[in-house]
């Protein structure tokens, strides 16, 4: 656990340094004439200081194993879920809402709980139709039609 929190605090320190550098480039200005980098610069400095305190606290006292944080994770399921969602975003315009959402739901229903294919197909169809009716027909939202044209 200690190692995880050390890495996290180092991440915050790096982020704070990067924001400070970018804010400096944007022009920090002074109290008489604050520039566009004024607030981000000082917020990043504060973030860095807090990360430093947190890092010192971690080095001094954190106990426990990494499994307290990462234990019980189904990495496989998580990767498939995230991969599917990002793929859906990439292909959303091309596939269109109806086809894309139907395919997404097939995967979601299947990986979250291994239901039978009949249930998965039925649930996916019903959910896609329901959301299409609610958002596109009822609320007249504009969702992409995709290469199939619907």
């Amino acid at each position, binding site marked *: 656990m200690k190692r*995880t*929190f050390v890495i*996290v605090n180092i991440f*915050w320190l790096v982020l704070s340094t990067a*924001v400070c550098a*970018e804010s400096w480039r*944007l*022009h920090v200005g*002074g*109290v*008489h*004439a*604050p*520039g*566009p*980098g*004024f*607030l*981000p610069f000082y*917020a*990043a400095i*504060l*973030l860095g200081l*807090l*990360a430093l*305190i*947190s890092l010192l*606290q971690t080095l001094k006292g954190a106990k426990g194993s990494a499994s307290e*944080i*990462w234990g*019980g*994770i*189904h990495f496989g*399921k*998580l990767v498939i*879920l*995230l991969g599917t*969602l*990002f793929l*859906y*975003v990439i292909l*959303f315009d091309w596939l269109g*809402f109806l086809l894309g*959402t139907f395919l*997404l*739901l097939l995967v*979601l*229903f299947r990986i*979250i*709980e291994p*239901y039978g294919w009949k249930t998965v197909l039925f*649930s996916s169809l019903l*959910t896609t139709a329901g*959301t299409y009716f609610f*958002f596109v027909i009822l*609320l*007249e*939202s*504009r*969702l992409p039609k995709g290469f199939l044209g619907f």
Partner: protein
Amino acid sequence: MDTFGQLLLGFSVALEPINLFYCFMGCLIGTLVGVLPGLGPTAAMSLLLPATLHITPVAAIIMLAGIYYGAMYGGSTTSILVNIPGEAASAVTCLDGYQMARQGRAGPALGISAFGSFIAGTIGIFGMTLMAVPLANLAIRFGPPEYFALMCLGMVVLTFLSSTSMIRALMMACFGVLLGTVGTDTVSGTARFSFGITELLDGIGLVPVVMGLFGISEMLLNIETKIDREIFKTRVKGLFPTVQDWIQSTGAIIRGTVIGFFLGILPGGGAVLSSFVSYAVEKKVSKTPEKFGTGMIEGVAAPESANNSAAQGAFIPLLTLGIPSNVVMAMLLGALIIHGVTPGPLLLTNHPQIFWGVVGSMYIGNAMLLILNLPLIGVWVQLLKVPYPILMPLIIVFCIIGSYTIANSIMDVFFMLIFGVIGYLMKKLRYEAPPLILAYVLGPMLEYSLKQSLMVSKGSFKIFFSRPISATCLMIALILVVLPIIPKLRKKRPGAVLPDEG
């Protein structure tokens, strides 16, 4: 026009059929998200925000407000029957509510929770009706230093009450401020942290951030935990509390209402804090504190009353000062801005129909919720039986559509997923989302009032300490930051067990 006349105007707006419909929808959806664990009012509001773009601002705000106070009603049902809080503000109701249900008194527990909520909610709105005009008049005299100090105080209070480390909560607030600076600087017109991405020139949208942090991250977490919901098989009967129940609960309801209302107004406060505080107070004043946790009706009446009056009280700083006191109000602020309405002291003069229409709808909504939560309790119990694996994909699809339709941009969906992953990691590493969201929303306003104050004072920070309101707020904020450093007090930090508001 006096307060009574304005209230009549509010009722005339709220009673228009379309507004009545959206009020009902808000209450219904609020009860629904309150009953269902895992989806809080913040996520539900962000989910439905795009859907409100087609309706009038007043109807939109009426519906979104209904979701918030409706969730306060619904949350108790799950706490009492399943021992899982439907939303954070009902967490403490589990302690005695579930025990009452186990003793065969689920009916009176649900009944007193609904009646207590109704009484507290109505008194809360009445308080809001009386306080709004004087507070708005006072707020007109507020300058940039007062606004800056109030926003600082709000953020510090929220971090002080965080359930984990205050340092981490402050880090989240800093991160939120930084996220708020992404986009074009309003003063100089300079693009900040946009890295050449056109979509970032307007900043990162509130909806993708909230949906990611509260909606998607919750789904990612739920994939690894199986939610067991064991519902009481016995029929819920006897919803009307007995005379003895009323005698025991009246004091608790009154105390809960008062505590909730004032903690709701407090920057950084809200329904969650008030329910915990009122439970603690009830235990303190009770002659039998050792019986709390074994099925005491006061342990249900007090927190349920408190969270409802707090939900109403929280609207006061948002609508009169333009400052959200918690993350749900921050979401509502975003909604108002999207609809072209600037909340603040001028809201009462510029858009009286919105302010008083919302107030009027709250009176009506409270009555609707009493009906929705008592005679229809059986429906909500049935809903609890819907398997979570069925609901989860639905929520994910709703999040995606919600994010996309706000600006018809796939980049927003992408940002939502990124914030979903960030939110998931934050939950794993025990960083809290509410300080981040509040700071993200307040960040641009904070920057604007800070710059204005410094320009007016020609670069002197004395301006913040020479004006009584800003000096008081900043002093309180400073004390709250310093308090946890004192080791003895750190262990006694009052809110150290509070779950997230959203």
